[in-house]
């Protein structure tokens, strides 16, 4: 039995695959790159959605994990290029799978660290503390000159994936698309698991969860770390897409944008991040083509969404969410 939301989801997933393939077939690689951007941003926001949508943890610092993933890719690639050993005699690498693992590990560990302190608080405190820690990482990246400091770090040639020519836009898009679908699958698994139920229950009523003998803190911390790792993976892909990493990936505007993607699409919904990312990139492309001041109008649209259209795009297309 297909619900309306499932149909909308299938259509969205199919569109994201069909549009760039069609664009590629008709010789328009530019649109393939745009679709890749959508897929990567959706992956980053899906990571955040685990913490924010399921757990109700409004992290305003996920740019830190996005940027850390990006820097992991950039630093590994630069060491592989220069041949200098990285740490303890280990060398860099140009292999995407290895880079992804490192990006997820580092982002997840930093998430664990930030979460350990931030999750002691809740509400507004949590928002501000995650923001502050992300700023800390941002300022560190700016003032640490070894990897470009404020100027950022270029990745000269896109990293490699065995058997695929990653320099071809459509191949790289397919890699990102598959990873996005895997992440969405993981989201479904987590949402349906005992762990996911506890996480959602802790959002709805913390006291009850504690009463039945589950510690909300540990559940949340685990979710926060997984969420950070997923966003870190997206960061590594984003670095490879642009072949460039800079502190702007770590800036608080990025954190804000990730939340915006989720809200535009529909909070806590499986495909909310994808719908939001598609909408955001389309806005950016269309409005940005019309006026240099597109962020002004983005602000207005966002304000209207928050004030008047609370379910986001999926709320509009697929009706109310089944549970709040």
């Amino acid at each position, binding site marked *: 039995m297909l619900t309306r939301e499932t149909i909308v989801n299938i259509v969205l997933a199919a569109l994201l695959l069909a549009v760039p393939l069609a664009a590629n077939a008709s010789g328009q690689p530019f649109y393939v790159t745009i679709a890749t951007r959508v897929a990567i941003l959706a992956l980053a926001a899906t990571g955040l959605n685990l913490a*924010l949508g399921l757990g109700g943890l*409004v992290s*305003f610092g996920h740019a830190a994990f996005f940027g850390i993933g990006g820097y992991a890719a950039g630093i590994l690639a630069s060491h592989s290029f220069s041949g200098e050993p990285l740490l303890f005699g280990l060398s860099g690498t140009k292999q995407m799978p290895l880079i992804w693992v490192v990006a997820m590990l580092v982002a997840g560990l930093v998430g664990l660290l930030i979460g350990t*302190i931030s999750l*002691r*608080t809740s*509400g*507004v*405190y949590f*928002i*501000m*503390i995650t*923001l*502050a*820690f992300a*700023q*800390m990482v941002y*300022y*560190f990246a*700016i*003032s*640490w*000159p070894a990897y470009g400091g404020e100027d950022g770090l270029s990745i000269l040639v896109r990293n490699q994936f065995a058997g695929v020519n990653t320099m071809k836009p459509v191949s790289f898009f397919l890699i990102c698309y598959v990873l996005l679908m895997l992440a969405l699958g993981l989201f479904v698994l987590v949402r349906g698991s005992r762990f996911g139920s506890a996480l959602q229950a802790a959002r709805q009523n913390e006291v009850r969860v504690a009463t039945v003998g589950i510690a909300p803190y540990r559940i949340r911390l685990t979710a926060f770390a997984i969420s950070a790792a997923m966003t870190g993976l997206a960061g590594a892909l984003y670095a490879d897409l642009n072949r460039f990493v800079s502190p702007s990936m770590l800036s*608080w505007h990025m954190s*804000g944008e990730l*939340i*915006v993607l989720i*809200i535009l699409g529909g*909070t806590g919904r499986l495909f909310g991040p994808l719908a939001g990312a598609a909408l955001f990139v389309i806005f950016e492309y269309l409005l940005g083509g019309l006026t240099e*001041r597109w*962020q*002004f109008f*983005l*602000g*207005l649209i*966002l*304000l209207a969404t*928050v*004030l008047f259209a*609370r379910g986001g795009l999926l709320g509009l297309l697929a009706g109310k969410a089944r549970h709040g």
Partner: protein
Amino acid sequence: MTLALALEQLLNGLQLGVMLFLMAAGLTLIFGVMGLINLAHGSLYMVGAFACAAVASATGSFWIGLIASFACAAAAGAIVELLVIRRLYDRDHLDQVLATFALILIFSEGTRWLFGSFPLYLDIPRLLQGAVALPGGAQYPVYRLAIIAAGALVALGLYLLIGKTRLGMRIRAGESDREMIGALGVDIRTLYTVVFALGAALAGFAGAMVGALQSVQVGMGEPVLILAFVVIVIGGIGSIKGALLGALLVGVVDTMGRFLLPQVLALFVPPSQAGLIGGAAASMLIYVMMALILAVKPRGLFAAAHA
């Protein structure tokens, strides 16, 4: 390292702290009374700076500009409150964060539209130009001392306003029980607008004062906003006293850390390395301090009882 240099840095830290207090006081008041997290507070800081720069260059007087910064920021605050913010009071924090994030985009691009992308410059008024000699022989700019004095005066004024006046009594009542003072016949909607405009005016005033030290440009409020968040998290959200102490702490620790850390490290490692590591470590210092304070007191040093 000489005593004079250390004293100079200490004063710089105080000056930063005082400015942070002006921002943090507004933020913490707005959160305390209305329960609202306002990311657009940095935009009001920017509005104040631009108003001061524009009016000062039109009239030739910094002082008229300073009054304009106060008035414009208060007016902008009141308008925003009436149009947008009052719809957010009974929403959750996520909606508040997003709506005020949207306001930042609107304010920043709107200002760029009006004034262009180039920074404006604001001259220090003649009365406050020049420098005074510090004990130890260093020269310190009068204007920075004036900022410290102005901030201290505002802190005193806020203390009197909140502790001794009728409006202050309502604000305190609003912090402890919003529904009750509404039920007692206080026009709570007007009170909210007044509090928001007051916070905005403080931010605008801070922006104008700092505008004469740095350039006046779009986005200037954002780093200050985030520092102000650190301040109120450390001080305890909703507490003016906490905001004052937190602001001075953050201002002095940040400035002294940037000054001292490289020098301390230079005792152990070569100077070039020390500058590098020290600089990077100093930029993280206040966040580490925040983490440590939160590890001991998760609600800040002076948490309001109800928050």
